[in-house]
């Protein structure tokens, strides 16, 4: 009831649970598509093509049943970076059409143009990465990376180990957070608080939380290793995962569409400008 509703779910990454055709795509297809998009976006140099990119992106968001506000909300965290980049581009691009000048600072039309393109590019990149992380659980992402990395395993790339680490980290982060809360409270009931007092006291306050936390985490790691061994874990060899990645025809189709679109984006550089 009320209590259950209040239970805040700790979520990692930005996964946005929904039933949608994008959610159900093979995560490998989504990773490859995103990488393709990011590459393609680098080549776009005109507003018309950016309009196409954004139209494609909005369509994908709609298919994924993700509110556009949420996807572009991720940009909010980058506002400072974006403004900074835009200003640098605006003021440090040389050009002939000087619009405004103050000492060494000159604002040119070319500068504005460049900075607008740069903003469009960055926002598009963030949005497309978001499209991947919003529609794919961290576990599915790590499975996909394991699968994509498997061909590299023979060169010593620890694909399985990375995936297992990811699984364990996801499982234990909430446990450790809860433990950290308990430790902080235990120390606070002895007056230990790193938010007040002299620098040495603050330092000691931090140590008093970090030491038990680390010590307990090591104990957990030790216990977990024994428990995994007891359940027959001997590494990735001969292991069959319950979670299965299934590459369906739709994944191929989606990837083909993306490939064609991205090819156009790349080619756009050499095509006559549309606008």
């Amino acid at each position, binding site marked *: 009831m*009320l*209590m259950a509703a209040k239970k805040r779910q700790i979520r990692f990454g930005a996964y946005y649970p929904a039933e949608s055709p994008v959610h159900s795509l093979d995560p490998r297809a989504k990773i490859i598509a995103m990488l393709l998009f990011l590459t393609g976006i680098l080549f776009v140099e005109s507003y018309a093509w950016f309009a196409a990119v954004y139209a494609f992106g909005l369509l994908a968001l709609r298919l994924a049943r993700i509110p556009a506000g949420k996807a572009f909300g991720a940009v909010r965290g980058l506002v400072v970076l974006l403004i900074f980049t835009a200003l640098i581009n605006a003021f440090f691009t040389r050009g002939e059409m000087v619009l405004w000048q103050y000492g060494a600072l000159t604002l040119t039309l070319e500068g504005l143009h460049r900075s607008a393109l740069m903003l469009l590019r960055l926002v598009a990149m963030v949005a497309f990465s978001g499209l991947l992380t919003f529609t794919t659980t961290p576990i599915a992402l790590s499975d996909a990376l394991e699968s994509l990395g498997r061909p590299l395993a023979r060169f010593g790339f620890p694909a399985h180990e990375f995936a297992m680490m990811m699984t364990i980290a996801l499982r234990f982060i909430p446990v450790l957070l809860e433990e950290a*809360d308990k430790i902080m409270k*235990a*120390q606070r*009931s002895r*007056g230990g608080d790193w938010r007040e007092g002299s620098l040495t006291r603050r330092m000691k306050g931090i140590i008093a939380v970090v030491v*038990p936390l680390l010590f*307990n985490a090591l104990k957990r790691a030790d216990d977990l290793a024994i428990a995994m061994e007891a359940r027959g874990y001997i590494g990735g060899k001969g292991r069959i995962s319950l979670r299965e990645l299934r590459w369906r025809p739709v994944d191929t189709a989606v990837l083909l569409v993306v490939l064609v679109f991205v090819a156009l984006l790349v080619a756009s550089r050499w095509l006559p400008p549309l606008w």
Partner: protein
Amino acid sequence: MALRMSGVCCTYGENDAWRAAAVRDISLTVERGEIVGIVGHTGSGKSTLAQLVCGLLPADCGEIWLEDLCLTAKKPPKASELIRRAGMVFQYPEHQLFAETVAGEIAYGPENLGWKPDEIQREVRRIAAELGIAEDMLAANPYQLSGGEKRKVALASVLILRPALLVLDEPFVGLDAVARQEFMDMLLKWREENDSTILCISHDIDQLAAFCRRLLVLCRGELRLDMPVRQAFSQVELLRECGVELPLARRAVLELAARGWPVATDALTLAEAAAAIKAAAKGGDADGC
């Protein structure tokens, strides 16, 4: 008056990522020197209540007073003021031990309060003597102690601050019978000498029955029962509804009474139950004659 709560609620805040059960409309008064047990199912709000009392969680409504200090005032009380009045010993000593030596661990609280070094040294020795922590153990690494010893060090590190109200979270878990008895005697003696008050959360109903004078029963965040412990265990229906078991001693005499024995049904400890049953057996014989 050691503690007064009126209309306190806490539905833990949005920013709290961890689960803490909510409590609603808690009102109670605890007098200085009382030993109060708190029971309830997991998630009933026991530990939320304990943390509210110690100022470790902010209340959403109502008032909490520790003696003359208001925890729910606009301006939160200073740590030094708070700690003198209430100290909490958590269930797992592993959640607090961090210093290189036992002495350093026990000295952490006083250091935070800015006591003078020679005063700290004196007080560390004093509390160690009171709790039976041997001189040579003070130099030991807390992580290398046994479970019972760790528990004692954690307790000492809070008791050294002489809090007027001591809150204990599951103090008996993992201790054997001898250690448990020792622990209880030690706490009782300390309370006597320091004129302090004890709140004790535990699932170990047999121990609570022997240790506490008054019992609070929490159920889904509400205070359902607040009575002297002997009467509290007569509220059989309510306790069952709240998922709280009766102490074995009480169960034994109640069941015998149900089987028609003329037995007194107010036993709290095994010794009391045994005495009552023996008396009833004798009385029964007398009837027979």
